[in-house]
């Protein structure tokens, strides 16, 4: 019984390690820059969705405002670098820390709300932040910030010629987000979060401080998403409010986890691997007609998957486990 559980966790870790190694080898064979670009984005969204999943999947506090933390990460890094010459590596940590603090400050009033009211609050707050940034002249207002690129440098984390460094960083980020989730899943926090999601009253009666649990989940989740935002700013080297804090980012963080299996370890990875290439491919092959056919196809696929597998794509893999019981 106990050993079975330990075995499953070890197996998850080994599978993840193998997948990471395989992913690391892919660029040796795939030289096409367009495909490499899609791979970077896939890994980035896998990391973002994994982080979103901590608050919304495990702890059950559905946020559709995580674009706020993504944007905060991007802006913190870009502003610190362009205005004060602070290296992006420190910017990343600063962005993460600021986001974690803001997530808790916002959580203080918002975690008193339950269900739909909480979701609405997250959307509205992210939209307010977007408008504020659009009107903040020092931060470039609606025009955004251009990060000057002066040659390839790990120190400044900018590369003009190759996508590979970005690829490996994105892979590392996705791995870290997965590992954090893996570790938290079998920790006091992991159990508390799932208990809070399933039944906050029962959780409270068992000594779980529901409010603090939510705050913890929000802080971890926001921190990791902000690091993703910092990475994105370096990757595209030009940011404006709409392109890092738009509502679509909130959706693109939620969708992979929801499609793959919300509140599961593998759901976000699986969802991102399928969804992000699909987004890019439908756009490049059937987009551009101006009629939005790509969005229709894309939307239809999402609806079909959610109808066929309401518990997410991971449920395809779990039927064998159920049968084995």
């Amino acid at each position, binding site marked *: 019984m106990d050993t079975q559980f330990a075995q499953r966790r070890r197996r998850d870790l080994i599978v993840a390690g193998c997948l990471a190694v395989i992913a690391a080898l892919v660029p040796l064979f795939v030289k096409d820059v367009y495909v490499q670009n899609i791979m970077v984005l896939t890994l980035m969204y896998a990391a973002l969705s994994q982080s979103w999943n901590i608050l919304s999947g495990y702890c059950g506090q559905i946020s559709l405002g995580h674009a706020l933390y993504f944007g905060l990460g991007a802006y913190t890094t870009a502003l610190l670098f362009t205005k004060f010459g602070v290296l992006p590596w420190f910017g990343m940590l600063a962005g993460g820390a600021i986001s974690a603090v803001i997530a808790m400050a916002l959580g203080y009033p918002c975690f008193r709300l339950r269900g739909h009211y909480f979701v609405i609050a997250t959307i509205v707050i992210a939209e307010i932040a977007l408008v504020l940034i659009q009107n903040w002249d020092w931060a470039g207002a609606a025009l955004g910030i251009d990060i000057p690129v002066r040659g390839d440098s790990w120190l400044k984390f900018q590369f003009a010629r190759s996508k590979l460094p970005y690829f490996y960083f994105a892979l590392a980020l996705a791995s870290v987000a997965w590992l954090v989730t893996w570790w938290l899943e079998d920790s*006091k926090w992991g*159990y508390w979060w799932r208990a809070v999601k399933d039944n906050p009253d029962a959780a409270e009666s068992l000594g*779980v401080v529901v409010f603090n649990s939510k705050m913890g989940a929000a802080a971890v989740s926001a921190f990791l998403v902000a690091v993703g935002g910092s990475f994105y700013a370096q990757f595209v080297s030009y940011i404006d409010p709409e392109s890092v804090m738009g509502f679509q980012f909130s959706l693109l963080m939620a969708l992979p986890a929801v499609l793959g299996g919300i509140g599961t370890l593998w759901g976000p990875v699986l969802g991102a691997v399928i969804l992000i290439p699909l987004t890019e491919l439908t756009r490049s092959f059937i987009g551009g007609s101006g009629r939005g056919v790509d969005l229709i196809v894309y939307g239809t696929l999402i609806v079909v998957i959610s109808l066929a597998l309401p518990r997410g794509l991971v449920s395809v893999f779990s039927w064998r486990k159920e049968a084995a019981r």
Partner: protein
Amino acid sequence: MTALPETPLLETRGVWQRFGGLVANSDVSISVGRGEIVGLIGPNGAGKSTLFNLIAGVLPPTQGSIIFDGEDVTRLPAAERCQRGVGRTFQVVKSFETMTVVDNVIVGALIRNTKMRIARQKAYEVLEFCGLAARADKLAADLVPSEKRRLEVARALATEPKLLLLDEVLTGLTPVEAQTGVELVRKVRATGVTVLMVEHVMEIVMPLVDRAIVLNLGKVLIEGKPTEVVRNPEVISAYLGDRHAVGA
């Protein structure tokens, strides 16, 4: 130990609870001694559940105080009372449905054990004690109602309570299931845990409890040995109406 063993484990002193114009509890003072099984009974609407929730810390009373283990816990939230040794079940079961049975119990065990491995081990022990070990890896959602009741008890026991509050755990069960429940409660008491149980099925509770407290219209009507309580004319009239009381 700050509290002497002779002091009651739980005491409510002049507790009032008003919901707007409705008085659910008026001037309720009860005490529960260490190692006792006490039944809190009364007809529907007597204020049993309200009193139960006040003791568990779901809400603070409008007036009065609640003393647990020699400490005033009137203003403490539920989670902190659990920390001090109050465990409870819910009348309408509140399992963590998407989690397995053992994971449900681990949530309770974590308050006393920070190491996951030990919490897990503890959870299996409690499941064994409650006769749910065979169901450990099932999802809580897949349990039958009587098993869900037992899971509630298991989860609460995993928090290592001094006082276990049982909210109608025996109601709505078949006679055989109820008998298993009664035995479980006796086993719990044998481990040194004090039990306060709300029930309204008198014939099951009476043989089990050491003392019964009858609530009616928000007040303590009478308390005493179960055999005395059931013969009391006031209790009969509260349950069945005045006509029957006169006949008795």
